């Protein structure tokens, strides 16, 4: 696995790209490569992270403009190949805007930008993003978002529940998300989008290590 490379996508306005890279390289010894959003060559990339931030200044809607970048255009083939894609916060918003994941993320119910640690229930082990083999059904991760309220229609919600696509649910819903949803996967399980920031929970000195496993699972086949 020494050559395994995780691409960290950089949009104008991304601001968690370096945190993700630090967590992967510094805490997990996984090689990373920054990918400017205008690149569409993913041939030497084994897994991708769409990091948090404010791509294109959140203009129009969060993630709406990023969706049209050459890199996102190349993502369809990447996902179909079975390689793993992790969308964190703004990355999750981009994945819903571009249709890789269903639903949408809209302004928090109370309009506050919420910056806090939240407790999350692991609902599904689809894709192996959270299943450590050790029984830990609840994890604590930081959130930092103004538009993180997950919304979908009732048919979509039923599909998410029936197909075990809900990965994480808030224990105490901070933003008004439907069904307390904090993260979902695609049907195959190789795409995960979540509002919490696992890369900010990878070292005890900054408050916890519950995010390590999710980042580490990028190298799963």
């Amino acid at each position, binding site marked *: 696995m020494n050559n395994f490379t995780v691409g960290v996508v950089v949009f104008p306005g991304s601001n968690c790209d370096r945190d993700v890279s630090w967590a992967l390289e510094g805490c997990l010894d996984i090689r990373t490569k920054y990918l400017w959003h205008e690149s569409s060559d993913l041939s030497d990339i084994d897994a991708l992270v769409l990091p948090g931030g404010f791509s294109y200044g959140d203009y129009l809607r969060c993630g709406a403009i990023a969706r049209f970048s050459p890199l996102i255009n190349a993502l369809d083939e990447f996902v179909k190949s079975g390689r793993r894609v992790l969308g964190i916060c703004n990355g999750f918003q981009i994945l819903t805007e571009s249709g890789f994941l*269903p639903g949408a993320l809209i302004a928090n119910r109370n309009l506050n930008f919420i910056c806090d640690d939240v407790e999350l229930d692991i609902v599904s082990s689809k894709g192996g993003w959270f299943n450590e083999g050790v029984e830990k059904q609840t994890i604590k991760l930081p959130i930092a978002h103004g538009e993180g309220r997950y919304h979908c229609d009732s048919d979509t919600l039923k599909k998410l529940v029936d197909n075990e696509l809900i990965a994480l649910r808030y224990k105490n819903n901070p933003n008004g998300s439907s069904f307390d949803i904090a993260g979902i996967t695609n049907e195959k399980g190789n795409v995960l989008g979540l509002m919490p920031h696992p890369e900010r929970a990878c070292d005890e000195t900054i408050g916890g290590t519950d995010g390590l496993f999710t980042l580490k699972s990028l190298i799963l086949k």
Partner: protein
Amino acid sequence: MDQFAVKVFVRLRPSVLDPAGEATKSASIKLGAEGIKSLRIGKMIEVKIEGNGENEVREKIDLLCDRLFANTVIEDYEYSLKKL
């Protein structure tokens, strides 16, 4: 080629809670305005566009609305069009 002025209105679907609209409604009541039953905030996008006739322009605007201006998971759109 004809030129058209298009006004696109994008609104949150009625089923989607609009917290910004609720906050503005609350401020409107504090201002003393009476009788406000509902207040919801949308977006208006003005586009000047040229094409061969209204039908062609409508096709272009439909595509823009559906794929970019609105996210139809949460929003509805409508537009008006005026030949310049």
